[in-house]
């Protein structure tokens, strides 16, 4: 690993957060988002991969009024402000679910399996949710 340094001389590592669960059915999506936001405060080189049902986290038009839960999808839009700009969506998962880039609440990069394979191999730390 060739770790970079933060301005204060701390280590910068490459983090990948792998989000594979649908929102609301379980809490993992929400609590993963909380981890991603915190990682930004540590000035780490973070990216988020949405794969399997995780791609549903970014679906536009979520409305939780009848469910009585908090709609946390707008927070994905706030990630950019925290310098978490690398949001990747697994192409195969997206297509299997009949989704396109236009369905997402934020701008994402759609990645093929082969692209994800090499990105993941390049990470220092992979965290799974």
């Amino acid at each position, binding site marked *: 690993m060739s770790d970079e340094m933060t301005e204060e001389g701390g280590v910068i590592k490459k983090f990948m957060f792998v989000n594979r669960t649908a929102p*609301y*059915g*379980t*809490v993992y999506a929400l609590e993963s988002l909380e981890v991603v936001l915190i990682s930004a405060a540590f000035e780490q080189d973070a990216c988020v991969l949405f794969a399997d049902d995780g791609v549903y986290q970014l679906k536009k038009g979520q409305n939780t009024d009848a*469910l*009585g*839960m*908090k709609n946390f999808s707008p927070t994905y839009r706030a990630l950019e402000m925290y310098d978490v700009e690398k949001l990747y969506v697994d192409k195969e998962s997206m297509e299997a679910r009949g989704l396109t880039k236009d369905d997402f609440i934020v701008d994402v990069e759609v990645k093929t399996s082969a692209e994800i394979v090499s990105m993941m191999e390049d990470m220092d730390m992979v965290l799974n949710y």
Partner: protein
Amino acid sequence: MKFSIAIHEGPYTHEASDTAYQFIVAALEKGHEIFRVFFYHDGVNNGTRLTTPPQDDRNIVKRWSELAEKHSLDLVVCVAAAQRRGIADADESKRNGKDTDNIAPGFRISGLGQLIESCIQSDRHLTFGD
């Protein structure tokens, strides 16, 4: 009609507790009876009074306590499942040599037989779980 409900998952982690709650509210509004709500597996974690959820989110435990109060619901936490997971009332706490308890208002701890009895006494049984 009389309903028996089992909840298998804890608050926030899975939607099970939410769906069960909404189902029960709707059933009560229609005049149905909820014979018993039985909390099993991680469902017992719905019965702790120590949760402090974020201000902008629902308070699942408090919601159960209030619904129980309003409709005299019988909320039963399985004793064996509760012991594995650390949910205790004053009696359980004393019996197991603990220094405190954590059960929330409106919940009571009892045996698995209460689940079977609930099924026997009710017209329908629904499981909400993972």
